[in-house]
């Protein structure tokens, strides 16, 4: 059992070992069983994953080498031409990449910090605790079309609540067409993003907090540690698996961000809020540049892998 890895090296050694250990017939069977067990566990997942994620995605890799409108017989093989175009020639892709980075910094830092804070606060025994938890999570359950509508109304320059409130509190001069100006549009969508995404890390952190043994806190209390020291020395380290998940997912989501931008600004004004994923969508489904859109999708995938996988690996290494 302990030397599993050595055993698995190859069948050539088996006779030798069999000579040492009897009975000879059982050992290969047990070994086969041991080798097969993990794969049997993973079989359903692997089948579905290969058939319905890997296969479609790999076929899109082939598409990314073409110039094609998706329907006609007129397909031209352009090699890496689409990638070249994205990296060196496409001003919108450059805006999009910049926006993705801004989005990433804001929507990873703020919802994670806020979610952690709220999770710790709501892990205590407080009156109305369940209500608070549900309320904070509530924006996250809204369907996309609803979020788009609610916030388009809030930001509306003529009847929106944001401008009205600014006027009530005497800050009317800051009233603005939030989503309609290139300076404020991305920031306005980010606020919505924070609103919608904070419940998720909170939920994960709440689950993570349950795994921290009470004795740890008691020991800290006996040592006379204050709130902050306890939080830093016990809560934060114990939440490590959750940090990994929250940050990695936040980063990946930020590279892929599509829904909110698409529904709130449609990438405008003047493409100032395009992200890689909205630009991919425009190309694939509005401009019918299937090849170019597929190439953009691969750029997105590679960037998020480059960002997230090393992080996940280093954090979960055993």
């Amino acid at each position, binding site marked *: 059992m302990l030397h599993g890895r050595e055993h698995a090296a190859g069948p050539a050694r088996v006779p030798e070992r069999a000579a040492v250990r009897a009975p000879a017939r059982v050992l290969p069977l047990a070994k086969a069983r041991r080798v097969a067990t993990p794969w049997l566990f993973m079989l359903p997942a692997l089948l579905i994953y290969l058939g319905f994620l890997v296969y479609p995605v790999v076929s899109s890799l082939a598409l990314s080498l073409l110039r094609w*409108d998706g329907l006609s017989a007129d397909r031209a093989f352009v090699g890496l031409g689409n990638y070249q175009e994205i990296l060196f020639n496409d001003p919108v892709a450059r805006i999009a990449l910049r926006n993705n980075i801004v989005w990433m910094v804001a929507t990873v830092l703020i919802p994670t910090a806020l979610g952690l804070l709220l999770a710790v606060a709501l892990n205590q025994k407080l009156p109305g605790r369940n209500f608070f938890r549900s309320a904070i999570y509530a924006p996250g359950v809204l369907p996309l079309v609803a979020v788009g509508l609610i916030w*388009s109304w809030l930001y509306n320059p003529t009847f929106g609540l944001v401008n009205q409130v600014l006027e009530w509190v005497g800050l009317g001069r800051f009233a603005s*067409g*939030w989503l309609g100006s290139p300076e404020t549009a991305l920031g306005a969508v980010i606020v919505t993003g924070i609103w919608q995404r904070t419940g998720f890390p909170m939920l994960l952190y709440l689950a993570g907090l349950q795994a921290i043994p009470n004795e740890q806190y008691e020991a800290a209390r006996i040592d006379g540690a204050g709130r902050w020291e306890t939080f830093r020395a016990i809560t934060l380290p114990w939440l490590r698996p959750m940090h990994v998940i929250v940050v990695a997912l936040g980063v990946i989501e930020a590279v892929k961000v599509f829904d909110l931008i698409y529904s*709130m600004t449609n990438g405008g004004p003047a493409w100032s809020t395009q992200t890689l994923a909205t630009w991919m969508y425009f190309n694939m489904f509005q*401009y019918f540049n299937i090849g170019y859109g597929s190439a953009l999708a691969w750029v997105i995938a590679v960037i998020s892998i480059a960002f997230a996988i090393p992080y996940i690996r280093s954090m979960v290494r055993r």
Partner: protein
Amino acid sequence: MARSLSRRGMLQVAGGAAGTALAGRFGAPTAAAQETTELRFAHFLGGTQGNLLQDALDEYSQVNPGVVIVSESTPGSGWVQYLDKVRTAIAGGAAPDMFMSWGGSLGEAFVGSDQALPLAPYYEQYGWTEMLVPAAMDAIAVDGELYGVPVALQSMGLWYRTDVFAANEIEIPQTFAELEAAATTLKAAGVTPLSLGGKFGWNVMRLVDYFLEVTAGPELKDQMLALEESWDRPEVVETYAHLKRWVDDEWIVPGFLAVSPDDARVPFYQGQAAMVFEGNWLGPIIIDTGLDTALFDFFPPPTDRDPLRISAFPHQILIAQASEQADAAAEFLNWFIQPEQQTKYFDVEGSTATLGAVPEDDAYAQHWQELLTELGTYPPTDQVFDSELMGQFFAVQDGIITGDLTPEEGAAQMEQAAEAWRQQQGR
């Protein structure tokens, strides 16, 4: 203990739901009975319009037992999701028998890739040419060939508040100068002249199209849309200068760029804005919403050009090349575009491409019909330009409004985009 109980409980709930729903919903697509012809019809009508269309489809099945038309509707945010869905279906080898589309470039997307059936034989067989509004057929023709049957001819103009115009003693403008004078009067009276929603670009495009019709005139403008003439010219600069002035003078509701066209109507309904650039469809909406029709009317925007043209575009139904039931589909189309059906189901589209089918008791519709007979029409740019070039058009338009581009730069940038497109087409 509690654990396993709850898990079992959950499964029971799931099982119960599955049990009741399995029979109805879970199966593979219903296999048509042998003698039944099932026609799949993809369209983008939803809400009340969609329901009314369903009534028409049901009536057809009653009149023609054995024919079932299955409506596959993709309503919602404009044309993107619909086109997305239909194209995926066609590309994936499961094309609907019939599908709805617009005119010009949006319809051509299917024609160009040989997905739509040429309908000339059916036009001849059924004599459709004599029944339909010529302008509607022109609007869907691709290189003189008809691939669809027009079922609507939507026309646009400036809807205005009659009460606001009356209170400020404004007559319906007959010249561009009069329109601008009216705007000046309105602004001075504290009413924003025009409300637009810039979110998708096309609502603002209507105003740009109109300015271009004023500055360039019908002939030159048509050539420019065909990319036969340069866009880097004084007429385009003047068009963008108009747009910039209207924005800077706050003749358009401030901050309108990210507002959805739906929401842009709100200041108009509430009397804070005097006009919107909308089509004949607004009539039924005003009536449906329960607003006072006496407060709302429309006029063709004056262009000082001969002929005076208004913006108009068709809806058409195409038959898929891949359909094995093209004859049955054509039979249905023939039934649907007869004057009797078009009058009865007029509100499906709010306009018709069939001659003499406008309901007599619909004052708004009658008025639009008059305009269509008296005036010329021009297509909205987004139905002429390919969607990618249109993306550039919208971006330039946004740039002018935000002030990032001067009118001169805008004209130059449009020409640059047009030139890139010409080259790509030539390739």
